[in-house]
């Protein structure tokens, strides 16, 4: 080492001398960085502004009860949006979540319910939960398998499973609804510590857990790497296919859980109970800063997106705007989020 004169680490010093061009470029980069930071967290700013505006303009909006209510009504959307976020981060898409949630909702009600179209098996609610999770994960496995092993576009694969699973839900009860769940099934909704339903705590717990996995574990890091540069992920020995398969299974299992929760909340289910879930989940993710190109986004932002959609729905509900107008407003919101996403991308 000594004879090379390299004991001084600066001996090589590749081009670190100060120079005015580099300095002005660094300043521009710093400005860009600040703007992108703001854009990345814009959803929280919007949420706060929207809540403030609603609180001022709508009588009876600004109550703790109402806020808790918004979170409570966001449980289903919130749970599926976790899976959607994971799938989007890897640069994939899962369109089947809505019908998987609908199917597992009907299946859960069918297995445990006592109305005309139920199975009459009166299965224990926790066994039903396990079945719902397994069915969801199995749907996710099929999606993931076709996407990773047969290299079929995720949009096409999950569009097909969406249709198949929605059909299965209709087949199970000939399109009829099932009700009459035992009280034990409804505990997740009826147990209310501090007046807040258990499933609201579950929602918060799931966000903490899945955000933790994204930010602090190797698996989470690999999802961002896969979404950012798939080729590099492969070259550096990351098992891309295994991770993508797992993400699709997470997404399916979370949709299965959502179905089970829907049945518990509604004391039954109809096959079309979750038709709006897919659109809203993708909307919440995009509004929350998840890029459709993959590699970007966090569940913190998505939670804000979920709550923003929930707040707007609740506010429009309080002032009695008709549901058709609500849909137009939600659509415009998503359009705004997509435009924001593309602006950010161009800015980079």
């Amino acid at each position, binding site marked *: 080492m000594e004879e090379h004169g390299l004991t001084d680490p600066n001996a090589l010093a*590749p081009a*670190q001398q100060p120079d005015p061009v580099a300095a002005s470029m660094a300043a521009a*980069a710093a400005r860009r960085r600040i703007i992108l930071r703001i854009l990345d967290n814009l959803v929280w700013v919007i949420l706060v502004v929207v809540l403030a505006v609603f609180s001022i303009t709508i009588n009876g909006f600004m109550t703790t009860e109402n806020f808790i209510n918004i979170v409570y009504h966001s449980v289903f959307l919130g749970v599926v949006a976790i899976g959607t976020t994971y799938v989007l981060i890897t640069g994939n898409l899962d369109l089947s979540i809505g019908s998987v949630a609908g199917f597992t909702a009907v299946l859960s009600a069918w297995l445990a319910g006592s109305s005309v179209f139920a199975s009459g098996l009166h299965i224990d609610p926790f066994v039903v939960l396990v079945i719902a999770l397994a069915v969801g994960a199995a749907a996710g496995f099929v999606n993931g398998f076709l996407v990773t092993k047969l290299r079929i576009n995720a949009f096409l694969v999950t569009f097909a499973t969406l249709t198949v699973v929605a059909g299965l839900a209709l087949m199970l009860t000939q399109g009829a609804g099932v009700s009459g769940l035992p009280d034990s099934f409804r505990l997740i909704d009826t147990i209310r510590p501090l007046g807040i339903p258990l499933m609201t705590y579950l929602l918060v717990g799931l966000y903490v857990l899945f955000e933790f996995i994204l930010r602090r574990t190797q698996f989470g890091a690999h999802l961002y790497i896969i979404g950012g*540069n798939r080729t*590099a992920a492969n*070259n*550096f*020995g990351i098992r891309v296919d295994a991770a993508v398969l797992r993400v699709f299974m997470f997404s399916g299992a979370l949709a299965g859980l959502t179905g089970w929760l829907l049945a518990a909340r509604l004391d039954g289910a109809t096959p079309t109970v979750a038709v709006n879930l897919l659109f809203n989940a993708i909307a919440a993710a995009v509004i929350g800063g998840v890029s459709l190109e993959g590699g970007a986004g966090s569940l913190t932002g998505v939670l804000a997106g979920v709550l923003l959609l929930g707040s707007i729905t609740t506010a429009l509900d309080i002032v009695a705007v008709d549901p058709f107008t609500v849909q137009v407003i939600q659509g415009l919101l998503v359009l705004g989020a997509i435009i924001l996403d593309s602006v950010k991308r161009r800015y980079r």
Partner: protein
Amino acid sequence: MTTSIQPGTDVSERRTILRAAGIGKYFGSVVALHDINLDVYDDEVVGLVGDNGAGKSTLIKILSGNFRPDVGTIQLEGREIRLGSPADARALGIETVYQDLALCENLDSVYNFFIGREIYRRVFGFRLLQHKEMERRTRETLSRFGTHIPSMRDRVEYLSGGERQSVALGRFIRWGDKLVLLDEPTAALGVRETRNALDLIAWTRREKHVSMIFISHNIEHVFHLADRIVVLRNGEVAGVRETRATTPVEIVGLMTGSLLASPERAAVMQEGGGPRLDATD
């Protein structure tokens, strides 16, 4: 033609790090590589040159574990190895630097530096990233060659070209223990970044005494870095030359096939004073 060593070079004491013997790769009726024999010695930089389609990248992909050869064997330090994936190659100490630097624009320097080799601790079945330790080690490696990135946790898309490149090259400096494959590492770089990269490669070689295979379209760069030059043409080894005993003209001749790969011709070329590039430039 096998590895011909110029007389006067004492190779008897040099350890062979990599020996590829009889490597062949065929895509249907297309011969990508045929009967390639390549030795890389301890502390040696081998330049791998050839025209487009000569088989350079196929050979590199085989050595980096991206392709499997149809025939032939690869030995690393005398032991036969089978490379099923890039991960296998990495685990054996064969590190590859890719043309596009293989960065994830969406992630910070630390994630990019450790990509696929994150430091974690197992807690309740979770592989918890050791962020502080990873950041410390990234900083340590980068500072070894004088690069200081102000914010290690900024996405690399915010970094300057030189900084981004340092992160990518830092990986091979840290992990390239036995053999480093440099697949046109300067192809996507500007003039100044190319200089830095070449300096960095030369420095790493002196510092770590690691063997390298350096692929480049730029003959000047190859003459600057390589001890020995292997020329591929049409999927076969067209010639092997000691850098100090050959000229760019001869190498280009071998690449294009306008020269017979004979030492006699080479000697004639040198007598004739073929334009030797100044390697220090």
